[in-house]
């Protein structure tokens, strides 16, 4: 499992961990039944607080990506990846809806918005 | 009371004593060799030719004192390590984070003190004989008495030293107080005979005689009390340690 954290990102660390693990589950790097490293080991390796990893793991479990077996650890839940993807697409649509509403209030056109999206994908913002 | 932490504390004190023993032994050796060589030179060697008899007998007392002084060194060594613990409190802070109580620490230090005094007493005997042999005199009861008294006195001084360092928070002031005490004792010792001494001109043989008689008087009166004195010193030292290490900073 690869986790690469960025200190300069505005995204909180626990959020970065969650996103990266979710992504790996969705693209198949992590499959059902795979064991995640223990919270403490992960914290020690990444040199962050165990409270952070605990928070990330708790949210992953709450969102249905993992499950924990007391005494054994955290494991990847068998996913219906299509369903998950659909769920994430839906969430993205919600966010875009909000972005469109905001854009309208300052008179940004749909094309302007598309330009911004291109730049974001290209990593320029 | 003989729980593990006591032996650990004792072990530490013994190690510290061992380290100072080495230095003490070397010092003692010098304190012995020097007078012995001088005495032998008085009797058989070159000094005999240079120095007149009368001067020799006068300085005899001082020379006789030298083995006693070196022996009593060993009684003072434990207090040297104790003062270290008093001036640098880190060890005590650490000790307080463990189960080792102030009582056990005081006990361990007192045991070491007793060992130091015992070493002094034991060593003083052969040393007295060596000096006596070198000076061609007999070992008298007074010589032994002198050793005992001197050792008891020096032990008391080291306790005074330690206490002063603690209460005045400085080694220099402690030294001053101890010196003050010593002067007071010498003064008390000399007081009864100052009257007679002033009547005599300096260098007169009678002076030495007066001194010697006075010294012998003092020794014979006080010597029997030495065991009591030593016990008293040990008790005071124990109480002092207990007070210092138990007392939590205000």
């Amino acid at each position, binding site marked *: 499992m690869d986790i690469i954290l960025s200190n300069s990102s*505005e995204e*909180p*660390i*626990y959020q970065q961990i969650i996103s990266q693990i979710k992504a790996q589950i969705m693209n198949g790097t992590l499959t059902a039944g795979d064991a995640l490293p223990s919270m*403490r*080991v992960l*914290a*020690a390796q990444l*040199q*962050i*607080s*165990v*409270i*952070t990893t605990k*928070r990330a793991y708790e949210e992953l479990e709450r969102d249905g990506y993992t499950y924990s077996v007391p005494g054994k650890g955290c494991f990847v839940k068998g996913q219906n990846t299509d369903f998950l993807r659909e769920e994430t697409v839906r969430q993205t649509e919600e966010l875009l809806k909000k972005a469109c509403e905001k854009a309208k209030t300052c008179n940004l056109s749909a094309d302007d918005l598309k330009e911004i999206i291109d730049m974001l994908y290209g990593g320029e913002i | 009371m003989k729980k*593990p*932490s*006591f*032996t*650990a*504390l004792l*072990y*530490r004190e013994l*190690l*510290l004593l061992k*380290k100072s023993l080495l230095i003490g032994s070397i010092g003692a050796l010098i304190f012995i060799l020097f007078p012995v060589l001088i005495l032998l030179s008085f009797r058989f060697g070159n000094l005999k030719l240079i120095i007149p008899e009368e001067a020799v007998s006068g300085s005899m007392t001082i020379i006789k004192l030298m083995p006693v002084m070196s022996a009593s060194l060993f009684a003072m060594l434990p207090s040297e390590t104790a003062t*270290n613990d008093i001036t640098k409190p*880190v*060890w005590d*802070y*650490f*000790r*307080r*984070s*463990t*189960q*080792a109580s102030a009582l056990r620490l005081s006990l361990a230090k007192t045991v070491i003190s007793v060992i130091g005094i015992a070493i002094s007493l034991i060593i003083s005997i052969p040393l007295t004989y060596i000096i006596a042999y070198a000076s061609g005199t007999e070992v008298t009861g007074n010589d032994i008495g002198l050793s005992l008294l001197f050792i008891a006195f020096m032990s008391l001084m080291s306790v005074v030293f330690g206490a002063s360092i603690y209460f005045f928070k400085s080694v220099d002031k402690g030294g001053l107080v101890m010196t003050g005490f010593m002067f007071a004792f010498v003064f008390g010792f000399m007081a009864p005979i100052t009257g007679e001494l002033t009547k005599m001109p300096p260098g007169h043989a009678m002076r030495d005689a007066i001194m010697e008689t006075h010294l012998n008087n003092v020794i014979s009166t006080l010597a029997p009390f030495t065991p009591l004195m030593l016990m008293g010193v040990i008790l005071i030292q124990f109480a002092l340690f207990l007070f210092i290490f138990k007392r*939590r*900073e*205000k």
Partner: protein
Amino acid sequence: MNDYVNAIEISGLTKKYDGFTLDNVSFNVPKGSIMGFIGQNGAGKTTTIRALLNITKCDSGSIKMLGLDHVQNEYEIKEHIAAVFDEIPFHEGFNAVQVGKMFRGLYSGWDEKKYYEYLDRFSLPRKKKIAKFSKGMKMKLQISTALSHGARLLIMDEATTGLDPVVRNEILDIFREYLQDEENSVLMSSHITSDLDKIADCVTFIDKGKILLTGYKDEILENHGILKCSKEDFKEIASEDYISARVTDFSVEAMVSDRAEAKRKYSGALIEKTNLEDIMLFYVNREKKEWS
């Protein structure tokens, strides 16, 4: 050993000295975590730790360690804690082997094998006198002893001060290892906030004898931020919305304690992440309000 939630519970600790008062100090160190205790020199960190270890008596307040009262159960507690100081308490004429022998008699849980393993791991010579050790080696020796008797609580008083970054990192790694066991906890006082940025789970900030902040480090860092703006714009910022502000000729930097609220209220302003050092700087100046 009973079950407990907090390795250390301090409540209402007060102690008056001439010219300095520990004022109603309260905070908890959750079991299994490492608490960074930060503050300036003289802020009260060492005084608090001395009260913990019962080196000084407190005027009022209660302290619990490992679930037990620190005065009534002092004896039991001390078998299971280890204190590390900035100065090595063992006599400089001793060597590591002798120190080990002494510890054998001090703790019933002393593990000699583990001690020697640590010595080897730190490359500490066994027979060399402590006087010949470097500062880093002396600290590593102390830590070796602290971790070799099964202590459940490690209390470090400015133990990384004066050490070079490489050694400090080694020591932080050792702590991470120590915390792999959830039953272990660490209280670490330091003014080297960068170390605590890295390793602390919780942070308590003390200034002039008062606790200003205590809580999870992540939360504290997330909630605080530095608002940067021009001197003109700064005039629009309400005084109660920031802790203190650093005013330069070209801009103003203000520390806010509720980043989300500040973003909402002063949308458009640049609000950046912060670290413990900045938090300390800005809070220490909280009474001045504006400083440069």
